[in-house]
């Protein structure tokens, strides 16, 4: 079974994250960038499926040159090869453009049975790209999976929502986006790290992937971020002085906030 995993390099959630003043796109230069943790889980799931069913795992990213580090990390975990779509013209692409571009790149990989993605990137947080990619490719989309099983040509997923769990299935090929509870990602082993540098990484520009420059990038995006304001700093909170009734008053406060 051949699996493509869509992985994104994002600013480390532990570092200070900002938008650039000029065009409100993500300021990647000022933050440490890492392979998004949700994508580590997607890679982990792909490797587990590969261990059970064979086949090849290809990781795909669209991002600046530095995104090769994210690919290398995925390769060190055990993925077989990587494709990197990198072109200055892609800067500022919105979710639809990103999905269309990724669909083109997936098309360059032979015999794809399953596309795995994270359910939401920690930077853009659109949570839309996976379903959009599925739409462009005409694949069934099974999103927010907390469990994935493949049985012959069927993929079964436990889909977690706020209301409960849905058990859904689809025929392969299909796209699955995974949630945080899916698994605990493995550490890249040092042998894996040493082996990763010998694994193939294909870098594609727009033309290589058959993407029209007039369809991507900030200038051609359907949406524009016009303004951005940082979250106000947290206020001091509310202090309860304990005069013997502290417990009761805290419980009342929590009940008033509908937290208990």
């Amino acid at each position, binding site marked *: 079974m051949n699996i493509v995993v869509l992985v994104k390099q994002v600013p480390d959630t532990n570092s200070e994250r900002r938008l650039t003043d000029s065009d409100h796109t993500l300021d990647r230069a000022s933050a440490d960038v890492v392979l998004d943790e949700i994508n580590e889980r997607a890679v982990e799931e792909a490797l587990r499926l590969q261990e059970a069913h064979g086949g090849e795992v290809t990781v795909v990213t669209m991002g600046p040159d530095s995104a090769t*580090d994210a690919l*290398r990390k995925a390769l*060190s975990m055990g993925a077989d090869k990587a494709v990197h779509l990198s072109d200055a013209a892609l800067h500022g692409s919105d979710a639809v453009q990103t999905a269309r571009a990724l669909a083109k790149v997936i098309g360059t990989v032979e015999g794809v049975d399953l596309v795995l993605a994270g359910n939401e990137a920690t930077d853009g947080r659109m949570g839309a790209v996976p379903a959009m990619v599925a739409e462009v490719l005409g694949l069934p989309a099974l999103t927010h999976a907390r469990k994935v099983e493949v049985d012959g040509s069927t993929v079964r997923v436990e889909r977690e929502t706020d209301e409960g769990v849905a058990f859904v299935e689809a025929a392969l090929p299909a796209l699955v986006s995974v949630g945080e509870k899916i698994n605990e990602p493995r*550490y890249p*082993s*040092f042998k894996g*790290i*040493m082996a990763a*540098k010998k694994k193939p990484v294909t870098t594609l520009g727009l033309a290589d992937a058959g993407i029209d420059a007039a369809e991507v990038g900030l200038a051609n995006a359907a949406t524009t971020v016009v303004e951005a304001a940082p979250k106000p700093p947290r206020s001091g909170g509310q202090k309860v002085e304990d005069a013997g009734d502290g417990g009761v008053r805290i419980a009342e406060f929590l009940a008033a906030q509908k937290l208990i």
Partner: protein
Amino acid sequence: MSAAAPERTTARAGDLLDVDRALGDEERLIAETVRRFVGEHVLPEIEGWYERGVFPRELVPELGRLGVLGMHLTGHGCAGASAVGYGVACRELEAADSGLRSFVSVQGSLAMFPIWRYGSEEQKRRWLPGMAAGELVGCFGLTEPDSGSDPASMRTSARRDGRDWVLNGRKMWITNGGLADVAVVWARTDDGVRGFLVPRGTPGFTTRDIHRKMSMRASVTSELVLDDVRLPEDAVLPGVVGMRGPLSCLDEARFGIVWGVVGAARTCFETALSYARTREQFGRPIAGFQLTQQKLVDMAVELNKAALLAHHLGQLKDAGALTPEQISFGKLNNVREALRIARTARTVLGANGISSEYPVMRHANNLESVLTYEGTNEVHTLVLGHALTGLRAFQ
């Protein structure tokens, strides 16, 4: 960068000179992986292990899976990483605790290395894959109750009896001794000092852990007792005779120490920096006082110099050009400065500096061991003195 959350700025403060820019992609990923591993598996527990004086044995297979054990060796299940890669791994391990790095140093550089370098094919096959995987633990027995800085004065002996060898003697202060499935024991023979592989459970071979330690508490340190231990002919390492054998192993391990203590010092420095920025006395953060800044700056300067030195020695080692004197230089400087940084950091924390809620005193205590083992401060000074003057001062 704003002054808000200290832990968000200290990663760079600990590497002011951007020494890590010199790392390759694999080395960077190794550092990041170990850092994450210790963050998840070691830091939440280390204070408890240290106070109770236990080594987290259960982490050994995890370290094996990661590929840390014997990572700088090739073949037999070893990762074949660069010397710099091995160095950054030691640094990130020791940023958590010197005991953890000691385990890895002993396993990889003192137990696996002699088997890999001087062992027979059969010995390598028998021991190395299991040791790399963390299924088997090794130790290195050189020091004795009456033989420390002068290991050539060892009394432990091995004599031939028919085809067998019979070992007698005692080894002292042996890291991993009580855990070890195999002890690499150095003993005098008629031909000179030789290394023997002594499996756990061999009749006459017992170990006793040393419990009353004020340093390196999350590490097992033991005495090895060899009482008419009979070993087959093939228990001896065939590839080396003389003190060159154990000394070459120590050079490997010392290289890891040169890097490791940079990690311990970095943790102490970062702790002191973030503490100083938030602790207020006389109405302002103590980091604003010139005397405190002097301490912070001195710590940062020495920390970064030590990191540079480690990188430089790593590059020399990867180029096959590192000499024993240069390793002495690194061990002497980096351990001495790391200990100074730990002690200075402790003063910045005031009373909290002696609390186990902060890692500083633990690191400072551990570094007292690191100052002594693998050649004391004095011994490395005299090694360099000899290199400079051509005159031996230690005999």
